[in-house]
């Protein structure tokens, strides 16, 4: 709303009666009906005398020399319904013109997705628009989001990218895919979101738990992926993006087609296919790093101002090969890999996806209905169904090699409803309820003890959010949410593990059956979580914005944190959950200051996050098995503190030259042990120089430099006994890699092929200097260098 890109046409049709005094003044303000935000820079045209005025920054206008009469004002707007308002002008008359301004349903703006509303009033929030998303068409959601300040990722190679916000990832980052909270086993470090980025119209990142309508447990933040809006008019359009790249010797094709009608009906189909072979580091082939991805979706519905519905089904399937050299046997193999500095297995290039690999399929079905009640607000009701099936294949002996080691099926049903009461101009209330049922099935046919057990989970939640406009400059918000979670698991523990964990003292009553070497237990745990948010948005002038937000969030432990138990072959580590783990509680303070000058602007966003009972997974010791010694990674809880700041600035030096600058840093501390937290991203500095010439077929070229500092704050390494060396050795499992610097070049041009067809070509080079580097937050940093130079060519057709 602040952007106020609205053109307003006011036609004043004077009533009959010319002979009266015609020195009256009509003044007024054009505002948004719901938020009372002024709509600036509007053109007001009086049709009969061709009088034209514009509203100022505060939406105000003044028309002089009117007669004492009744006038009819016609107000229209590209994304609002045209209204006709009658005004009696007598002397100096004031009129408030209120426009319906519901962008989400009523959008006749020609460029779809270029106006993105903020999801929250006062939280730190950033959005990737369609153009940025399209440039990552052959990448993943995590790759694209890393462009935003304060967003990093936890990678397993380059194909598995888990977004991290302000240093936190996994279950602490909620992902909303077209209003549906993704339930895709986000608990695992090597589980990336099952989302096709090509389906997105915009992606917003809320850097904290302030968007309570989506969930109360977003201690890291919330990623909201919205689809491009479908215009309310009779139209047929589509888009095809073809990507080719040298590193991986493959590419992708993404296509979409939309048919819309003026009466609100629409249908949209969209699909994406991606195929890459082995990728390459500067010095060697990263054997077994290919990927295959297929995604498709179908959406149809009817959208009108007063009511509407839409149904969507999306399918996502990905098969990802995992670096062969990262599959190791025991701690000696790990020591050897870390010391050797290069992968043990380098084979010739291939497109084959061999073990270790993972194959994940995600089905998502959604049905949403909304109705707007005049003078009250808008009611939504949504049901969604998700099915996530994950296979992980390890290097196994003989026929076992074709058998998955992990085979999990997660099924989720969610029903939620909410009502947004926006009839009052100064106060908006949003209330909602949610119910969710989830079932996880761990297939015993793997012949490997389950890492994650069978469980059923129930969630119930309710929230109330309010926004109160104090005056034109100040907007306050607050919210409250309650969530109940029950998890009911059925799990086999090895008797020896049960006793070693001390569960025979605390949880003996959970045992259902004793099978000798294994125990069947049935833990049923309840969690009651409360989240609160309070904030203020102060905008003294149109180019200055100061935001403050406090969020209290609680998150129930995920199944991995509770139940993990066993050898994780792909990581060569024994991972142990803890049944005693309780919810974590976060208090996060966020401040943002943003100021725009004529040719430049800055944004400074400091934050502090105190997390009580912070759940973390870190190496603690070594256990001996007949396969050798394995590092034990245990979940534990501590009090953590994360302090950080995101800074960004831009400057338009001339109309052609522009620079962008970004710096993010976060410090994580374990306050109980006075050590650093594990897996906190290193400080990151980006500078970008862009040259653009719209007159040369929209030519644009940019060179970006990214400098990633060394993460100097890491937990201590551990000392392990090496059976091969028959002595204690230091396992450098926490030693961070060196700092690195990467250059990226991008350029693009647009060509109109015909009236309705446009071709955009772009060429990009990642890691321009073919730099050898390893990233601290890449789990494969022990085994191989990161990706080398990559040339990308993209052709985009809009039709």
């Amino acid at each position, binding site marked *: 709303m602040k952007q106020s890109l609205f053109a307003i046409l006011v036609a004043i049709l004077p009533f009959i009666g010319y002979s009266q005094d015609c020195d009256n003044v009509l003044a007024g303000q054009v505002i948004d009906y719901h938020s009372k935000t002024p709509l600036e820079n509007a053109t007001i045209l009086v049709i009969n005398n061709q009088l034209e005025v514009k509203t100022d920054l505060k939406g105000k206008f003044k028309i002089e020399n009117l007669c004492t009469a009744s006038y009819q004002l016609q107000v229209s707007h590209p994304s609002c319904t045209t209204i006709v308002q009658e005004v009696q002008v007598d002397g100096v008359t004031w009129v408030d013109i209120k426009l319906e301004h519901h962008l989400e349903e009523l959008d006749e703006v020609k460029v779809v997705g270029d106006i993105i509303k903020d999801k929250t009033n006062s939280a730190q929030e950033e959005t990737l628009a369609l153009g940025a998303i399209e440039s990552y068409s052959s990448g993943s959601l995590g790759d694209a989001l890393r462009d935003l300040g304060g967003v990093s990722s936890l990678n397993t190679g380059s194909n598995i990218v888990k977004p991290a916000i302000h240093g936190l990832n996994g279950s602490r980052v909620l992902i909303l895919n077209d209003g549906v909270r993704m339930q895709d086993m986000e608990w695992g470090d090597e589980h990336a979101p099952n989302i096709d980025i090509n389906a997105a119209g915009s992606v917003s990142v809320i850097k904290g738990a302030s968007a309570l309508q989506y969930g109360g447990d977003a201690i890291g933040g919330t990623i909201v992926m919205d689809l491009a809006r479908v215009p309310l008019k009779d139209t047929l359009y589509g888009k095809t993006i073809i990507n080719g790249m040298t590193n991986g010797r493959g590419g992708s094709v993404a296509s979409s087609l939309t048919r819309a009608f003026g009466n609100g009906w629409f249908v949209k189909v969209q699909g994406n296919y991606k195929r890459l072979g082995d990728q390459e580091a500067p010095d060697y082939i990263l054997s077994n790093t290919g990927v295959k991805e297929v995604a498709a979706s179908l959406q149809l519905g*009817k959208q009108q101002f007063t*009511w509407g*519905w839409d*149904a969507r089904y999306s399918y996502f399937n990905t098969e990802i090969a995992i670096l062969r050299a990262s*599959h*190791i*046997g*025991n701690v*000696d*193999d790990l020591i*050897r890999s870390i010391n050797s500095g290069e992968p043990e297995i380098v084979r010739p290039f291939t497109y084959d996806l061999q073990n270790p690999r993972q194959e994940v399929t995600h089905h998502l*079905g959604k*049905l949403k*209905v909304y109705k707007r009640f005049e003078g009250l607000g808008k009611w939504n009701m949504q*049901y969604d*169904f998700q099915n996530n099936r994950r296979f992980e294949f390890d*290097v*196994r*002996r*003989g026929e*076992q090699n074709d058998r998955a080691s992990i085979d999990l099926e997660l*099924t989720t*049903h969610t029903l939620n409803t909410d009502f947004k009461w926006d009839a009052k101009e100064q106060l908006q209330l949003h209330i909602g309820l949610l119910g969710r*049922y989830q*079932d996880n*099935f*761990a297939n*015993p046919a793997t*012949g*490997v*003890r389950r890492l994650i*057990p*069978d469980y*059923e989970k129930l969630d119930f939640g309710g929230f109330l959010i309010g926004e109160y406009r104090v005056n034109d400059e100040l907007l306050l918000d607050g919210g409250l949410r309650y969530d109940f979670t029950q998890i009911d698991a*059925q*799990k*086999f523990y*090895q*008797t*020896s*593990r049960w006793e*070693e964990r001390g569960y025979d003292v605390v949880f003996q009553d959970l045992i*259902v059956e004793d*099978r000798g*070497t*294994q125990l*069947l237990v049935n833990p049923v745990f309840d969690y009651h979580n409360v989240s609160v948010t309070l904030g203020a948005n102060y905008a003294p002038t149109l180019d200055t914005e100061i935001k403050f937000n406090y969020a209290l969030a609680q998150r129930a432990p995920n199944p991995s944190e509770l139940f993990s138990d*066993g*050898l994780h072959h792909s990581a060569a580590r*024994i991972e142990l959950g803890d049944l005693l783990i309780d919810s974590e509680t976060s208090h996060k303070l966020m401040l943002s200051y943003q100021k725009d000058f004529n040719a430049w602007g800055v944004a400074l966003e400091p934050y502090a996050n105190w997390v009580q009972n912070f759940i973390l997974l870190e190496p603690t010791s070594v*256990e*001996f*098995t*007949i*396969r*050798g010694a*394995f590092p034990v990674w245990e979940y534990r809880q501590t009090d953590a503190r994360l302090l950080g700041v995101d800074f960004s600035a831009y400057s338009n030096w001339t109309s052609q030259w522009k620079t962008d600058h970004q710096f993010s840093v976060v410090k994580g501390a374990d306050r109980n042990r006075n050590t650093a937290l594990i897996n906190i991203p290193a400080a990151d500095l980006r500078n970008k120089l862009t040259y653009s010439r719209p007159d040369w077929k929209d030519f644009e070229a940019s060179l970006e430099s990214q400098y990633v500092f060394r993460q100097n704050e890491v937990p201590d390494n551990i000392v392990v006994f090496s*059976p*091969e060396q*028959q002595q204690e050795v230091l396992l450098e499992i926490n030693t961070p890699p060196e700092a690195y610097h990467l250059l990226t070049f991008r350029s693009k041009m647009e060509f109109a092929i015909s009236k309705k067809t446009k071709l955009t070509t772009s060429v990009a080079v990642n890691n321009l200097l073919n730099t050898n580097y390893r990233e601290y937050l890449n789990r494969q940093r022990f085994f191989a260098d990161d990706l080398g130079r990559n040339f990308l060519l993209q052709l985009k057709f809009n039709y």
Partner: protein
Amino acid sequence: MKTVNIFSILFLATLLVTGCSEDDNTPEEVNEEETITTLIITLTPAGGGTAITLQSQDLDGDGPNAPVETVSGNLSTSTTYSGSVVVLNETETPAEDITEEVEEEAEEHQFFYVPTGNIAGITYSDQDSDGNPIGIEFELTTGAAGAATLTATLRHEPKKPNDGTLADAGGETDATATFDLTVE
């Protein structure tokens, strides 16, 4: 509009009913199928006599208990023993002999023996189809009286041929055990 609403409700109801109809059954117990729990080396003196067995057993697999090593007796000085190794999965009943799988995939496996102390030498007595050693059968010769250790390691997908050291062979360790021995 009315028909659309009825359709929506039906659609919703169908999804809910089909989704929730799965039965809540007791999960099936999984026993690790390819875990090696036990490694047994039998050393038979060439001139006849009592065979000596070295055993490493870890019945809880990747559980917290460490493997237990036992040696049935002492070795004699300057004696050649013909050795053989067996790897078992004893979590299954009857125990599964994994040595058979190793033999079937001999090109992808190799046992490595690293002695210290008074063991004079170890030589392989078997070959895979490429002529490289497997190590299921071997010969061990003792030296003078004193202490010795023997580390046996089964590697999956090692480099073959290799120079006989673990470092050169690479691959993943499937089983490893170190035995403390006395030569007398």
